[in-house]
Structures are given as structure tokens and as C-alpha cells.
């Protein structure tokens, strides 16, 4: 009888709070559909990890399923990198290849990463912890996981939860920031789509190879991040391995997402998660998204000072990696301001540029901070 009650009797208040947090994540996934593919497994694994003497974490020094998956898939960075293969196979870089200027917004909208990194440093986090917190602003789960795992594995739980939660909250976070920084007249600017020219199949095929090579030579520490993304894209664009491309987009994406989500729970134990710093990280995560959006919008306004054909500054907000949410948000905002203002192509090309920008930012942080 004592053995049966042992679990209940050794339950700590912290573990009960973690059950509630796990329940909240599951509720957000099911009721609000906030990144359900990640938050649902993370929620349940957070509960499993906090059961006293949980076999999921380990018994008698032997690792359990969660810790094993974490060691195999996250500590080695295999899961996030495989997710990049899947994402690469899903992305159509076509709109970006048709309008490469949009890549600049993919750079400007990474501003939140560095603002937040400095903010975290000012709040007495170490440089490596600050970089890991700042990377939440990449709006890119796998990049956040790779950087946090490398620099601050003890903060991986809150950083992952923040990254994925805020990504799903892009439709709520971005519009007020965009409205605050733009006038109605600016939001109604129409953009010419005539410069979107079709790109050749050769260009589509050479692009991922060239990006892997150039990015790898310039930022070797980003070689695995960008290389896996571009490998997935090459599968898609080559046109000769359709089965592999579809496998990466579907089976690989689903299986690795499932394993990635459930593994994160291994670091969501009450001891590690329930900390004042977790609240700070969650707060700074939202600041990162806000300043990403502001960086993109203000950069577009800056360019407009010199351009004859003005850019709708809302487009700048799509430079974050949250794809396609961000592009969709701006497209809808454009239509709401002017039903004839179709910004979809520009918004999506900028959003694709943001995906590339976030990976480059992650690689640069790995190189400069590491």
C-alpha cells in the first residue's frame, strides 16, 4: 500500500504547478489550436516528467523514455535539424526568387533577436543565456532549440515553449505593432506586382546549392542549419525525387515533430522550469516578437525615404520567420484597409525571406557567441 501511495505522498507543490502548466499547454493546443503539433506533446510530456519517481525520466539511474529521446534527438541536435529538412521541402522559394529585394526585410525583422539579447544581458543573464533568449525572436522553433541547446540547455524548456507559443500568437502580436508604427495612408500603399517574373527551373535548383555553399563558407557554424534546410528544398526543386520530397514534407515532418515535442518535456521538470527566470524569458520572448515586427516595419519606412515606388511598410513585418502566419496577417490587414490592395505575393516573398534570415541569424549567433 505504501508503495502505491509513494507517488502521491512525495508530490511537491512545484510538480502540481507543472501539471497545471502541462494542462494549460494541452488546453491551448486543443481549444485554441495554438501550435497543437508541438504544444500537445510538450504539455503531456511536462506532466509525465513531473510525476514523482517517473519512469519516463528515469529510475535507479537508468534514463527513461523522455530523457533517452532528449539525449538522442535534442542534445545531438538531430531532431531540429531533421525538422529543417522537412521545412525546406515544404518551402517554395519561388516568390522570393522572383523578388529578391524582399530578402532585406528578412534581415531587418531579426532586430528583435538582438534587442532582446541585449535586454537579457542587461537583466544579468550571461552572454550565452542572453543569446539563447534573444533567439526566440527568430520565430523559428528549430533554430531556437539548436541555439538554446548549445548555449543554455538549462533554459531549453521555457525558450521552446515561448518560441512555439508566440509563433502561434503572431496574428495577435503583430497587428497592433504595425498599426502603431504606420499611418492609414501608409497601410493603403499599393505595390506593383509587375516585377514578379517567373524563374527558371535551373535557378530554383542552383539556389539551394549556392546558398548552402555561400552560407557554409561565410558562417561555417550555420552550415548544418542552412544545409539541412536547403537539402530539403533541393529534394523539392530537383523534381527527380518526388517520393523523398513528399516523405520529408509529410512522414519525416510528422514523426520528428512528434518526437521533438515529447522530448522537450524532459527538461520541463519543476526544479528547472519553475523559476523567476522562466517568467522573465516568457516576457522577453514577446518583446522579441514585437521588436522583430517593429524592425521590419521601420526598415520599410526608412527605404521609402529614398524610393520612388513606395513599399507598403506593413510588408516589413513579414520578415519574421513565422510562415505563413505573418504573410497572411499582413495580407488581411492590407485588404481591410483597402479591399483592392492585394499584397499576398509581396507578403509571402518577404515571409520566405524571413525564414532564411532567421536561420542566418541563428548561425551568426552560434559563430559570434560560441
Amino acid at each position: 500500500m505504501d508503495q502505491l501511495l509513494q507517488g502521491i505522498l512525495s508530490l511537491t507543490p512545484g510538480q502540481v504547478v507543472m501539471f497545471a502548466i502541462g494542462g494549460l499547454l494541452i488546453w491551448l493546443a486543443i481549444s485554441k489550436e495554438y501550435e497543437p503539433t508541438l504544444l500537445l506533446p510538450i504539455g503531456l510530456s511536462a506532466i509525465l516528467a513531473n510525476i514523482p519517481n517517473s519512469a519516463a525520466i528515469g529510475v535507479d539511474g537508468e534514463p527513461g523514455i523522455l530523457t533517452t529521446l532528449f539525449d538522442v534527438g535534442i542534445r545531438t541536435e538531430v531532431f531540429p535539424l531533421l525538422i529543417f529538412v522537412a521545412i525546406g521541402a515544404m518551402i517554395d522559394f519561388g516568390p522570393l526568387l522572383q523578388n529578391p529585394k524582399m530578402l532585406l526585410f528578412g534581415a531587418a525583422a531579426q532586430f528583435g533577436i538582438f534587442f532582446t539579447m541585449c535586454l537579457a544581458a542587461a537583466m544579468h543573464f550571461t552572454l550565452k543565456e542572453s543569446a539563447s533568449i534573444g533567439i526566440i525572436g527568430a520565430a523559428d522553433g528549430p533554430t531556437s532549440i539548436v541555439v538554446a541547446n548549445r548555449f543554455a540547455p538549462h533554459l531549453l524548456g521555457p525558450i521552446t515553449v515561448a518560441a512555439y507559443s508566440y509563433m502561434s500568437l503572431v496574428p495577435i502580436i503583430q497587428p497592433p505593432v504595425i498599426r502603431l508604427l504606420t499611418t492609414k495612408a501608409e497601410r493603403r500603399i499599393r505595390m506593383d506586382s509587375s516585377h514578379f517574373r517567373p524563374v527558371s527551373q535551373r535557378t530554383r535548383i542552383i539556389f539551394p546549392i549556392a546558398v548552402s555553399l555561400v552560407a557554409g563558407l561565410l558562417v561555417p557554424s550555420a552550415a548544418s542549419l542552412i544545409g539541412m534546410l536547403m537539402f530539403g528544398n533541393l529534394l523539392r526543386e530537383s523534381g527527380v525525387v518526388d517520393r523523398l520530397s513528399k516523405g520529408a514534407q509529410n512522414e519525416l515532418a510528422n514523426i520528428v515533430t512528434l518526437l521533438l515535442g515529447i522530448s522537450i518535456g524532459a527538461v520541463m521538470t519543476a526544479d528547472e522550469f519553475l523559476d523567476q527566470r522562466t517568467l522573465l524569458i516568457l516576457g522577453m520572448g514577446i518583446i522579441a516578437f514585437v521588436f522583430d515586427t517593429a524592425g521590419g516595419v521601420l526598415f520599410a519606412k526608412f527605404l521609402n525615404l529614398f524610393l520612388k515606388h513606395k513599399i507598403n511598410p506593413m510588408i516589413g513585418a513579414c520578415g519574421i520567420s513565422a510562415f505563413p502566419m505573418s504573410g497572411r496577417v499582413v495580407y488581411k490587414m492590407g485588404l481591410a484597409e483597402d479591399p483592392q490592395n492585394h499584397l499576398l505575393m509581396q507578403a509571402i516573398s518577404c515571409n520566405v525571406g524571413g525564414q532564411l534570415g532567421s536561420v542566418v541569424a541563428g548561425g551568426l549567433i552560434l559563430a559570434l557567441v560560441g
Partner: protein
Amino acid sequence: MYETMLALTEHSVAPGSYVGSALPEALRISGVALLAIFFVMGLFGAMIALLSRVFPETVDESEGVGLEGSRHA
């Protein structure tokens, strides 16, 4: 003793290794990284422009018979 103290001193002045030391380094890295991102993305943009000029879309390709056997997945 001296070696231990030296090691401790070296540890304490290493960037980001003690509380409160990280801000100047974070500011410096942020500045460099932002410039580098614009440079890399600009380079990618120039690369795309070059590729589009070297390999322009042809009528045959737009009809789906550009590269032998290739189709967009």
C-alpha cells in the same frame, strides 16, 4: 595558489562569464551580427539576380519541359 587566482581572474574577465558583464559584449555582437545579416542576405539577393540572368525562364520551361525530366514537386 597563484595559478588558481590567475585562473579565477581569467574566468571572471571572459565575456559573459560573470553576472553583469554581458551587456557590452551583447551590444558589440548585436551590432556585428545585424550588419552581417544584411550583408549575407544582400549577397543571397545578388546571387538570385545573377542566377536569374544566367538562367532566364524560357518559353519551353514555362510550359514545363525545361530541364529534362524535371518537374516542380
